[in-house]
């Protein structure tokens, strides 16, 4: 900036001197032009002509004034700014030009600087040169400044015009070379809309701005952009084709899934029904009964209504099974269920609680009505039942409990009705209303339960083993250990009659421990005999209350020199549902300890397939109720369970296999294992050992079951 100013100052100074010198030189020359005229005018003494000449001189731009004086220095004519006797001169200086000096004068406007050139006016009168006077030409300093300003203005305007022209040319080329291509590139880029593939093909304007012969970076960039866009277009086309193919596949799969969903919905509906109903009799099961009992309790409490609960047990039904087989037993159950449900109102509920146990809820009924209904039920069951070639009489024992007299909770009402039923059974009275007397009788039953530890000590319990065979290899792969109580007074008591009480009283743990010890001991014995027979042991729900269950069981098994893989632990589906977190965690620990955990009675609880994904089981056992009187729906359910279990890498055991047709069908649908009377009923160890010696299953004869069929 300073340098520029200094340079500019020097330029201006130089320009000033140059202009001043030029102007004054021109003034000197000017006199030559006018001296002749002035001489003639003065010689003729023509003031008018002098004024005219001076006016003409003053017309010259650089001349600010002029005057003529005579030889006596008297003013004869003047024009413009001149120095006269009236004007105060403040400074004088001679200049390099001839007869020229710089004069500073004082005017009304202040100091003013004039350059004065003086020249003689002479006349040649016939060879005689006469001095007539002097002419003066004045140049105002402002004229020089104005000239410099004018020159500078011209230079500046010239520079501006040149600069603008250069800029215009520069911008033109910049616009052509850079801006237009960049704008086109930007516009093409902005036109790209990721959501609109059409925008890729619409941004064609870029091609128009490209020059094929140019090879600058911008052109290359634009070319690459077009190539990229083309590539994207191709990719989009490819993606669209793939999407169309994918959509077609999805649509196809959706149709398939829709069909599957219909089937699954149907299956789920069946499962839901089965989970809430007894598949054999079609009556509500324990779960639905419990739900309805609680519902009835709420209503009765709210409206202060009465209702009664009946506990119904078929007498000596086990004998029917033993004598005539389960098929006959099941038909008896169905017939009795039909007769009992037909004897009740539509508003009443009768459910099969398991085995030969039934229960009913009679809303609005009191004790008297309850007795009438009980009698009605007994009457309905009285006629002999014709089953195949057998004539069978079914008897029932019915316990009655009333709300609110005999209990205000579902558990109390049912337990008291159950106690009344035991009383009726013991008294062989058909039915009994709950009373303290009944309770006392029940106490005796509980005393029986209390005898379990002692019975263990006295070896009154024994284990029966029911074989489990592989449907793929036709080999015996294991046995399920089932406990029996050989009571000195009551004879052989089935587990249904004491397991429940044992669980309630807590002695089940001791019993489970005895079963485990006995089964392991037997398993070890078989292994020592060279038989690899896996033993399945039922675990009570209560067992999972023990946080060291896995550790204790593992220790017990090892104490017998066994590997945990030799033992399969069965847990009922109902137990898993009722205490899911505890059971799931316990199963996980057992699984981690090497045990094979099997989900027993699958299908009897109100569960869904999602349970299988939550529990670390390796095996499930389809409840035998699914396999009795199979129809198309139950076949679909069993088949779906098997397929689903296999997808979850869970093996499947079919329970209650009593016919060769069923065994063959199970093999066809890839069921892994089978257990049931067709293979063998539960056998005492001595009998089983004999069976092992004789059974084709154990001898691994590939055609054994087909022979049996």
């Amino acid at each position, binding site marked *: 900036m300073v340098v520029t100013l200094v340079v500019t100052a020097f330029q201006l100074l130089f320009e000033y001197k140059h202009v001043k010198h030029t102007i004054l030189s021109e003034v000197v020359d000017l006199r030559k032009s006018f001296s002749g005229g002035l001489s003639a005018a003065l*010689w*003729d*003494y023509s003031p008018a002509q002098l004024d005219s000449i001076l006016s003409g001189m003053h017309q010259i731009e650089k001349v600010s004034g002029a005057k003529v004086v005579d030889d*006596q220095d*008297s003013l*004869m004519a003047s024009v413009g700014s001149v120095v006269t006797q009236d004007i105060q001169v403040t400074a004088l200086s001679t200049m390099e030009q001839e007869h020229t000096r710089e004069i500073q004068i004082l005017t009304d406007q202040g100091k003013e600087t004039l350059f004065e050139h003086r020249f003689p006016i002479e006349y040649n*009168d016939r060879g005689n040169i*006469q001095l007539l006077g002097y002419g003066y030409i004045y140049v105002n300093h402002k004229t020089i400044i104005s000239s410099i300003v004018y020159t500078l203005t011209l230079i500046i305007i010239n520079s501006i015009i040149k600069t603008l022209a250069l800029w215009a040319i520069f911008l033109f080329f910049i616009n052509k070379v850079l801006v237009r291509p960049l704008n086109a590139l930007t516009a093409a880029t902005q036109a790209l809309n990721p959501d609109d593939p059409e925008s890729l093909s619409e941004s064609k304007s870029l091609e128009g701005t490209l020059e094929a012969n140019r090879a600058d970076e911008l052109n290359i960039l634009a070319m690459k952009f077009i190539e990229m866009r083309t590539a994207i277009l191709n990719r989009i086309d490819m993606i669209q084709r793939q999407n169309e193919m994918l959509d077609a596949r999805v649509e196809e799969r959706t149709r398939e899934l829709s069909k599957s969903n219909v089937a699954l919905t149907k299956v789920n509906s069946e499962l839901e029904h089965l989970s809430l109903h007894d598949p054999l009799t079609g009556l509500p099961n324990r779960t639905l009964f419990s739900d309805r009992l609680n519902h009835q309790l709420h209503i009765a409490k709210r409206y202060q209504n009465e209702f009664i609960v009946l506990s119904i047990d078929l007498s000596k039904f086990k004998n029917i099974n033993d004598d005539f087989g389960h098929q006959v037993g099941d038909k008896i159950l169905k017939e009795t269920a039909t007769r009992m449900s037909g004897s009740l109102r539509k508003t009443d509920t009768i459910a099969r609680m398991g085995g030969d146990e039934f229960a009913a809820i009679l809303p609005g009924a009191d004790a008297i009505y309850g007795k009438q209904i009980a009698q009605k039920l007994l009457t309905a069951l009285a006629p002999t039942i014709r089953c195949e070639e057998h004539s069978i009489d079914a008897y029932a024992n019915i316990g009655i409990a009333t709300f609110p007299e005999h209990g205000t909770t579902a558990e109390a009402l049912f337990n008291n009705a159950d106690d009344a039923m035991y009383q009726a059974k013991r008294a062989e009275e058909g039915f009994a209303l709950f009373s303290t007397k009944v309770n006392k009788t029940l106490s005796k039953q509980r005393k029986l339960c209390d005898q379990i530890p002692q019975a263990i000590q006295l070896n009154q319990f024994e284990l029966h083993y029911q074989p489990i065979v592989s449907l793929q290899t036709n080999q015996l792969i294991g046995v399920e250990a089932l406990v029996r109580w050989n009571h000195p007074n009551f004879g052989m008591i089935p587990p249904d009659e004491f397991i429940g009480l044992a669980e309630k009283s807590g002695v089940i743990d001791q019993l489970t421990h005895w079963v485990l010890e006995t089964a392991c001991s037997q398993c070890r014995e078989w292994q020592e005999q060279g038989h690899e027979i896996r033993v399945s042991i039922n675990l009570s729900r209560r067992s999972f209350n023990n946080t060291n269950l896995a550790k204790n069981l593992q220790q017990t098994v090892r104490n017998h020199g066994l590997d945990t893989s030799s033992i399969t632990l069965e847990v009922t589906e109902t137990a898993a549902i009722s205490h899911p977190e505890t059971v799931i965690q316990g199963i996980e620990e057992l699984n981690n300890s090497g045990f094979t955990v099997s989900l027993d009675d699958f299908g009897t609880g109100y569960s869904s397939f999602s349970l299988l994904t939550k529990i670390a089981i390796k095996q499930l056992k389809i409840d035998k109720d699914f396999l009795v009187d199979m129809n198309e729906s139950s076949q679909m359910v069993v088949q779906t369970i098997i397929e689903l279990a296999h997808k979850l890498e869970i093996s499947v055991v079919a329970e209650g296999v009593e016919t060769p047709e069923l065994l063959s069908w199970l093999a066809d649908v890839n069921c892994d294992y089978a257990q049931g009377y067709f293979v063998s009923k539960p056998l005492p160890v001595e009998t089983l050992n004999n069976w092992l010696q004789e059974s084709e299953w154990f001898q691994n004869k590939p055609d054994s079951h087909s022979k049996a069929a």
Partner: protein
Amino acid sequence: MYKHFKKNLAIAASILVPLLLTPAVGLTDTLTLKFGLYGSERRSSLDEQFNPILTELENRLSHSMGKKVEIERVFFRDYQQGLDAIVNGDVDFTRTGPATYALAMQRNNELSIIAVESKKGKKKFEGVIVAGKHSDISQVSDIKNRSFAFGNQNSTIGRYLSQLHLLNAGITIAELDNYDYLGQHDKVAVAVIRNQYEAGAFKIGILKDKYIADRVKVIAKIDTPTHPWTAREGLAKETINHIKAALLGITDKSVLKGLKRDGFLAGDDSDYTTIREAIEKNPLFLNEQHAVATDAN
């Protein structure tokens, strides 16, 4: 038929001709007078010089004569044409130099002076005979055998009176080394200043210019009658009197500025006796006795 036509035409003419010949009321009241102007100046300068006084004269005449009076300016290029116009009655009145008046009267003595111009309240002004400032000429007689510059050949001072002065000093044109008629008074002055002529004669007003006054010296002064305003032969006496009264009444300096006079005075032919004498003696100066009659004609 033809007889009736002639009768009707005579009737129509008797009615229409008087109507056609009778001017409108305004026109009837307008009097147009022609005023002769001459001089070496440009026409515009003469018009500018005389317009104020002629306009004033129109007003005054219109007022005094009770009718509109218009003065038509008639310009002539020189003395001679102006002289001829008044002599021949081409203009109604004119302003002439004293010598021109005398010459005109020689040709037509029916001309009459309306009024004479006043110079400082007098009917005369001065002319001068000058020499160079540093000339050795100190009196008129010293001019003998010297060069002399005259003005216009018809000029009162520039010729007749100055030549009379030279004649009276014993100098005729033959005793002049050189002479010429330069036409204008200022040119005579400049010629003397530039030593082109050693002496010269011009009206005294030229010496108001300091440049000239500083460079010449007056050798002699010449009394000269002022300019007369002359009426043509036959102009109505009433009109002449109205013009005279009007001119004598003008005292406004702004009106008189162009004439460089201060007013008008009553005058007559006797005021120009001197110039008439000078004209008559001029041939003596010229040594051309026979030529006097020619010039007078």
